[in-house]
């Protein structure tokens, strides 16, 4: 029990802070923050698997998150038949061409051994393939994008349940990680960081600008939800009865019937939004708990020990006959898949897909701060890091505003400095996160909850 004391304390403080937000701001805000904390926790766990278990630095989190989000659109949105008939064949042909290029490159890699000759052939086949794809796809893209551009203008998805897309998001991200891993995993750590960041930028710019795929920066709104809609709840009798029962005391204080009805209406509207968010919280919590159990099991298995051995001394592990390259690729894929899952969860939670919002600051660097702050190599730490940093990220603005007002009370409201400071309050979040990261790196480099290695004594 003593062993877990600091973990329990840390989580209780976090929960207490979120409850404080509920009391002082609103329960709806508190639940929004909690949901995002849970999503961040999943992302952090993905990054932590790569960094904490294997020492791989992946700054491409943004790209995998975007792919997870794309999966939601591709899976859950209803297909657009007009677009498919307008340009579907061209797009399918392009897909076959891409597969053809991959197969031919593989064939060349296998059959030709002269290095120079091989490289030229690969370059030739890729360039020819790209030109062919452009010729085949451009009329198709034009036709698809002109199908009711204000509403659709894209191929749409498969129309399947949205929860299914979480798995697909993970799979898409895993596929990307396989390619990136093949290209970049042999590089030294800081090169790997830069290379993954830049490849993620390429992925995001494709998602942003290929309008036929997911409308690009025009966004996809009104995505399906795995939980009921507020409007349906507000019209269902059982829900109204439930709210009435819960607020019986409050309602009895009001005398006039019409007033009572108004108050009840307002209560039902508030409660419906909280109910929806609570359902989401339940779903996310399930994901986090399942992932936590699986990753903890993996960490304490022979495989986990092997990964730590590789992380701590690659040469020695290699000399013991462990396949370092293969294990690195595997863990890179696993971690990225979890990040993809988190990306899908986030888009499901928001109900909209906005490719323009995928920026490295928010989706790579903040996630990394979470990993470092929480404690590398420790799953409980990673989750806590996600909670703490997301909480700070959201609440830093209001806190800064409060402090500015507090310290400048003696200044008049039109004082230039005060006005300027109040205007720039939202940017204090960068300052707090940055200083927090620097202090953690300096004085507690192992994070809030450091990694514990249980070595059985013989």
């Amino acid at each position, binding site marked *: 029990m003593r062993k877990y004391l600091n973990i329990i304390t840390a989580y209780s403080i976090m929960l207490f802070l979120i409850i404080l937000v509920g009391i002082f701001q609103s329960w709806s805000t508190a639940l929004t923050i909690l949901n995002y904390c849970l999503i961040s926790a999943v992302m952090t766990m993905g990054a932590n698997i790569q960094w904490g278990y294997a020492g791989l630095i992946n700054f491409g989190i943004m790209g995998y998150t975007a792919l997870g989000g794309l999966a939601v659109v591709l899976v859950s949105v209803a297909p657009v038949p007009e677009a498919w008939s307008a340009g579907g064949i061209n797009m399918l042909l392009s897909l076959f061409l891409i597969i053809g290029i991959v197969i031919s490159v593989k064939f060349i890699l296998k059959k030709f051994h002269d290095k120079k000759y091989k490289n030229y052939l690969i370059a030739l086949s890729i360039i020819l393939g790209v030109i062919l794809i452009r010729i085949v796809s451009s009329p198709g893209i034009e036709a698809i994008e002109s199908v009711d551009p204000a509403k659709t203008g894209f191929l749409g998805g498969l129309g399947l349940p949205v929860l299914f897309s979480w798995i697909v998001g993970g799979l898409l991200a895993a596929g990307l990680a396989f390619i990136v891993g093949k290209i*970049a995993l042999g590089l030294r*750590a800081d090169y790997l960081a830069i290379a993954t960041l830049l490849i993620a930028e390429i992925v995001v710019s494709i998602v942003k*600008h290929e309008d036929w795929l997911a409308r690009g920066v025009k966004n996809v709104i009104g995505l399906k939800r795995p939980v009921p809609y507020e409007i349906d709840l507000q019209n269902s009798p059982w829900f109204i009865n439930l709210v009435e029962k819960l607020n019986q005391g409050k309602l009895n204080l009001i005398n006039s019937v019409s007033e009572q009805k108004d108050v009840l209406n307002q209560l039902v509207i508030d409660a419906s939004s909280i109910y929806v968010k609570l359902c989401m919280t339940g779903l996310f919590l399930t994901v986090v708990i399942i992932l936590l159990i699986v990753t903890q099991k993996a960490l304490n298995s022979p495989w986990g020990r092997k990964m730590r051995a590789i992380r701590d001394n690659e040469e020695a592990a290699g000399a013991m006959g462990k396949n370092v390259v293969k294990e690195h690729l595997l863990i890179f894929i696993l971690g990225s898949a979890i990040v993809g899952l988190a990306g899908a969860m986030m888009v499901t939670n928001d109900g909209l897909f906005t490719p323009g919002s995928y920026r490295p600051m928010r989706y790579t660097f903040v996630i990394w701060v979470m990993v470092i702050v929480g404690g590398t190599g420790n799953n409980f730490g990673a989750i806590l890091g996600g909670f703490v940093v997301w909480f700070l990220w959201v609440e830093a603005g209001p806190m800064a505003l409060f402090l500015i007002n507090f310290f400048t009370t003696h200044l008049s409201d039109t004082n230039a400095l005060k006005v300027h400071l109040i205007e720039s309050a939202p*940017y204090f979040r*960068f300052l707090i996160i940055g200083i927090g*990261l620097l202090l953690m790196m300096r004085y507690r480099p192992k994070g809030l909850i450091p990694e514990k290695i249980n070595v059985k004594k013989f």
Partner: protein
Amino acid sequence: MELLNAFILLLNYTIIPAITYGSQLALGAIFVTLIYGVLRFANFATGDMMSFGTMFAVLLTFYFQSIGIGLGVLPTALLTLPFAIIAMILYMLFIDKFVFKYYRVSKSAPVQLAMVSVGVMFVTQAIIRIIIGPFDRRFLDGEKFILKASEFKEMTGLNEGLTIKSTQAITVVVTIILVSILFWFLNKTKTGTSMRAYSDNEDLALLSGIDPKRVVMLTWIIAGFLATVGGVLYGLDKSYKPFVYFNNMLPIFAAAIVGGIGNPFGAFLGGYVIAFAEIFITYAYKKFFTYILPESLEPDSLVQLLSTDYKFAVSFSILVIVLLFRPSGIFEGKKI
């Protein structure tokens, strides 16, 4: 005549902008490569440090304009450069003393220093946004054009006009001056040689009596020059917006790695490689072909390899290709 028109067209829309953009990238890339070579970490605060220096130049320019000091035809920003550079160097030395020094002395892994630079990035970004805000600002004054398209057409009687903006000329001239002084310093002076020695082999350099503190300080001073000048030139040519500067870090990294990280001359050329690739691949050649091809063969489409949306993606793809086939860069940088 047709050929000449085609050439002027290319010159106007691709070559001149590419040289300008390449110079701006090159300065940033040398900055990255110097920090990587001497201090041995990938500096993720690159873009924001450039932005920080530029912020001073912008604020001082506004101040100088308000009190009526200017350079006539040249932009006032050139006058503010020395002050901005000094402020930048002071900030860098301050950060080094309180943040980076600890990790350098305790010989931390490069990854850890890179993570620390992410922290510096956050803080710098916050300071910039708190002081100047996230808005787009133009601070170019003085003469805007050296050569206008209409004047050129009148002069030569060609169909195509050639425009040379004064910022383009300033960028190229300042870059040439700064880079030649830098290479002269690195290759010909004793201090420069000691810096290169420290970058090549730290232990040997220490053994032969090179003072590491001096080398580190010099590196930050040179970095301050490069970051501020590169940032101000970019801001004059386009405009000053903190978010754009942060994003510029990515092609700068690409340029440094393509040129062989740790190798200043490679980084210099890498900047141009990236800039030329970005602009040549995303340029629509339709008009160019209508000049050089007979009428029957004229293309109907834009003849554009990739749309301009993929400008950044191009440079990153080049980086990926270089990493695949020549991981140490085109011009042999540090071993990885």
